């Protein structure tokens, strides 16, 4: 019975995902341009939150480096956009972010806890200031123009990156690597003792998660059309990814997706009209989630179920 229940759930999940992707893919046929642009932004945040959660969720290493990989993608698009076709640019952006993350991960993932976090914050700032200095000194201008792409193309590429990410995250999660990552998060020393090759595994998964951030940055740059180091390496991108993932909840696969969709929609609605109030709400949600809702939104589900069961038990004849 149990195995059948699981496989049914799996089939239902796959069907739901298939229908969802088909609906999203055909969005450009029936939705307005505004909706397409809105959904593109939401997809971007889902990619950032999901790829962050892919590494940081199971291991517990809080990385604030997403902005570095995202910015790397943006600059790849700005530098190579004129010379190469869009598909190539995005591939190179992903690959570049992978290499950067590999280097960073190999150097720093042995740093523990708070040291790793502040290192990743410093990394974003270092790259930003170096790029800024390079641009001002050698090219003489602060920003760059990016060849814009058509809204529907941007949307479809964003969706394709997301689907690739979801597949990768799912495969890693259910493979033995996923289990090994989980064991690192619970007790790194014990994981090493039972034969998990701790540092290479952390580094590889960290680097794989960076591919999608870089690719998302490259395609997003074609929509913004003008970029400079402050836009590209904005630490807020990292905070957003972390908040959305934690707000949704790291306990379930779909938690970060849920968190990103809700927060990204809120952002689109509020940020142009009330930018300060939006950021205020952002901070309040972050504090309230960590203090009162450590499991995120998905952590609420079992609590609700327990509560309902208690109510039912308490009702006579129920």
């Amino acid at each position: 019975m149990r195995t059948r229940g699981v496989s049914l759930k799996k089939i239902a999940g796959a069907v739901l995902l298939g229908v969802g992707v088909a609906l999203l893919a055909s969005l450009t046929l029936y939705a307005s341009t505004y909706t397409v642009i809105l959904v593109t932004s939401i997809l971007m945040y889902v990619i950032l939150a999901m790829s962050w959660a892919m590494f940081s969720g199971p291991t517990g290493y809080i990385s604030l480096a997403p902005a570095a990989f995202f910015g790397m993608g943006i600059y790849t698009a700005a530098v190579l956009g004129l010379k190469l076709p869009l598909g190539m640019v995005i591939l190179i952006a992903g690959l570049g972010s992978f290499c950067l993350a590999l280097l960073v991960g190999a150097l720093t993932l042995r740093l523990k806890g708070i040291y790793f976090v502040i290192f990743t914050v410093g990394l974003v700032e270092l790259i930003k200031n170096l790029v800024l200095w390079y641009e001002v000194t050698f090219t003489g201008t602060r920003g760059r123009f990016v060849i814009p792409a058509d809204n529907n193309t941007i949307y479809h590429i964003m969706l394709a990156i997301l689907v690739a990410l979801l597949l990768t995250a799912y495969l890693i999660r259910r493979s033995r690597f996923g289990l090994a990552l989980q064991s690192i998060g619970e007790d790194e020393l014990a994981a090493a003792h039972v034969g998990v090759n701790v540092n290479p595994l952390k580094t590889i998964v960290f680097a794989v998660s960076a591919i999608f951030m870089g690719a998302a940055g490259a395609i997003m740059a074609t929509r913004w059309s003008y970029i400079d180091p402050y836009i590209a390496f904005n630490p807020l991108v990292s905070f957003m990814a972390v908040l959305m993932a934690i707000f949704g909840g790291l306990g379930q696969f779909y938690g970060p997706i849920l968190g990103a969709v809700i927060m990204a929609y809120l952002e689109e609605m509020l940020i142009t009209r009330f930018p300060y109030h939006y950021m205020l709400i952002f901070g309040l949600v972050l504090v309230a989630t960590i203090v009162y809702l450590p499991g995120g939104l998905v952590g609420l589900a079992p609590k609700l179920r327990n509560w309902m069961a208690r109510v039912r038990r308490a009702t006579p004849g129920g």
Partner: protein
Amino acid sequence: MLVTILDVVIAGLLMGGLYALIAMGLSLQYGVARVLNVSHGEFIMLGGMITWTLTAQYGLSPLLSLVFCGPLTFALGYLLHRTIFRRLAATAESPGVFEGNSMLTSFGLMFIIQNLALVIWGPEIRGYSYLAQPVNIGGALFGANRLLTMSVALVVGLVFYFYLARTRMGMAIRAAAQDRGAAAYMGININRVLAVCFALGAALAGIAGILISISYPVNGLMGFEYTTIAIIVVVLGGLGSIPGSFIGGFLLGLVGSVVTYFEPGLALAAYYAIFILLLLVRPTGIMGN
């Protein structure tokens, strides 16, 4: 040549005094209360903006702001620790989880305080003129306000040091920093000590904000830059070591001044480069163990 060197060194020391003050506050919050407070810079900003309001709008002396901003930021810090961080400490399953959660919470606080300030004061850059006449030190010219900033920073730093070294509360703080459990067995009210530490850190930030506003323009967005500088200095001096932060502050001020002399665009990049190299080579800092 000699005057140039003197110029660079004195400018570095003047900046360093401020850095030291900022970093000592953060060091106290992390070293004892175990909160890597990313909203530290926002308390600096609050000190700066309130002082600007008192000086430019109401014509009061910025030094008078010390008696107002100090207690205010202290109370705010105390309240935050009693409500949020104490709860986080009580629910966290391990010290590592608490450090991670409290840091993320302080990111949230950063957004809250910063944007409240932007709603109140707007994003404009504010400044006022106070003691702007130049003073000649061995041929190099410096504003009197910078010297004042530096001397107040030194006095506050020394008072703070003697507070930790000589008073009962200071002893309790040092005991809690060394071994929280043992300190509690000796009859120290740990929750109170931790809240006082967090509040003192916030007050030091508030005072630093007042001093910054005397010499430099301020605005609602200035906080994060000072937070990152404070974190760099604290790592440089050794996380949690207060003398380390003090020395680290002057060291970073000197480095910044030297790099600015040769290539002004690279000053911030140099800070981060030092910081990243340090984390890789000697994460415990110069005074850590």
